[in-house]
């Protein structure tokens, strides 16, 4: 469980990026932060040194922890460029275990297993990142984040640089991983469709790290807190009225748009 308690963050330049933010991210659930650019999402995700307030991980105040060791306990997926270009796929995945002192041979062997986990062929192991497609690179990024088997997974617009079809695939894949591994996941996006596709809990931001609404996708869709949220989720636009659709024999709930096209999946197995 991650708790933000009255967090504020003022950058040296004077920008107040986050102002008195409090939230609980439940364990083993995916919480998605969604909001327009500059609303303070990344700042919150990186909140290792807040200006004011406390961040607790499983009740422990992180301000007392060594930031380097803390980062090694947390899986972090960045945008496509986050892989180390001079290291092979398998060595990229093995980065954090190697930093933690796992012998090279063991770390590489585990890395191969992780390729399976994220749905990549093992034959890609000896390639360099620039020999992979954007979607494959992103899967490697996820594998790297999972390599030290962290309890917490942070993802900052990880699928922002891939095309919509691959993006949808990756979202489905992430949902599968989330079901299988049950990480406490904090996912940042500016795409409300992506948020609804992935989240157990959605947090919609105004600028300045101010929460507009927190809730499950169903709650937010059913009851937008105000006009801002309604506009943001597109519920007020006639061209896309989202609704939920249950399928027989499937625990997942489908979100379907006004034209009957699936827009995402809600909470399978929950």
């Amino acid at each position: 469980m991650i708790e933000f308690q009255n967090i504020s963050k003022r950058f040296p330049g004077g920008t107040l990026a986050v102002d008195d933010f409090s939230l609980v991210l439940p364990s083993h659930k995916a919480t998605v932060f969604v909001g327009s650019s500059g609303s303070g999402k990344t700042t919150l995700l990186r909140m290792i040194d807040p200006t004011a307030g406390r961040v607790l991980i499983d009740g422990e105040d992180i301000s007392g922890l060594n930031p380097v060791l803390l980062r090694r306990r947390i899986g972090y997926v960045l945008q496509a460029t986050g892989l180390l270009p001079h290291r092979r796929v398998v060595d990229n995945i093995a980065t954090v275990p190697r930093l933690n002192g796992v012998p090279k041979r063991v770390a590489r062997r585990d890395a191969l297993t992780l390729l399976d986990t994220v749905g990549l062929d093992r034959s890609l192991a000896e390639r360099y990142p620039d020999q992979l497609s954007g979607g494959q690179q992103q899967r490697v990024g996820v594998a790297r984040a999972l390599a030290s088997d962290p309890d917490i997974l942070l993802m900052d617009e990880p699928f922002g640089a891939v095309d919509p079809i691959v993006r949808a695939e990756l979202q489905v894949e992430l949902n599968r991983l989330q079901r299988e591994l049950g990480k406490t996941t904090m996912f940042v996006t500016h795409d409300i469709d992506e948020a609804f596709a992935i989240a157990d809990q959605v947090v919609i931001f105004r600028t300045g790290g101010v929460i507009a609404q927190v809730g499950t996708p169903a709650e937010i869709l059913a009851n937008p807190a105000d006009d801002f949220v309604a506009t943001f989720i597109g519920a007020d636009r006639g061209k896309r009225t989202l609704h939920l659709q249950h399928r027989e024999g499937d625990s997942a709930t489908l979100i379907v748009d006004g034209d009957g096209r699936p827009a995402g999946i809600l909470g399978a197995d929950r």
Partner: protein
Amino acid sequence: MQFFLDAFRWLLDPANYVPGAQNPFPIQDRIGEHLLYTVVSVVIAASIALPLGFYIGHTGRGRQLVIGFTGGMRALPTLGLLMALFVIVGATVPFTRAAFVASIIALVILAIPSILAGAYAGVESVDSQTVDAGRASGMTELQVLTQIEIPLSLPLIIGGVRASVLQVIATAVIASYISLGGLGSIISSGIGLNDNNRILGGAILVTVLALVVDGIFALAQRLTRRRGSSGSRAQKTHVRGRSLRPVTVAETPADERNN
């Protein structure tokens, strides 16, 4: 043309290579000395300039100060510096060693700016998102430097060393002005005796030495250029424009001063 033929014949004359021959012979001893001065001064310069350059490139701190300072060092006339050092050093160390110490100091000062520029420009040029990724994975600052920044900028770093080695090889010739050995002593003895073969032959030796060493460095740069290396492109222009005074790396800080 006849000059050159004579000089080459002189270079190939076995008599000039007989051990124990009268100064400035045998030639191989002078080549050895020349390389010794070069290696000693570049190693000393690198052990000062590389850590400093890595620090500046990694932290971005002290940049303006060092750019200004190395600019000043570049502007120093090496010959004048050598003479001044010879006088100053001569006051404290015995005459026989004063020439060596003064020459090495002058060459170290000559070698530092290029190595420093290559090191900090290289480290600075590594994609900040890659560096961030390393940090996010839990690398310490030192691990970010040694596992990401240095490997990815190795071609630029070596380029800086390469530029300084060539400068030192070319400039070590003047060490003979203060009665030190090296290939310069062949040239200056030729000037004294009005012997064109020695002058031209010595000059050819310096040139060939520089070209061979430059080739070795070009190879090293090629071997260390890898995926994602920040130096890959600058490196190509550098090889094409090869000369005794490589310019690519040396001019990087000047470009950046305008920013």
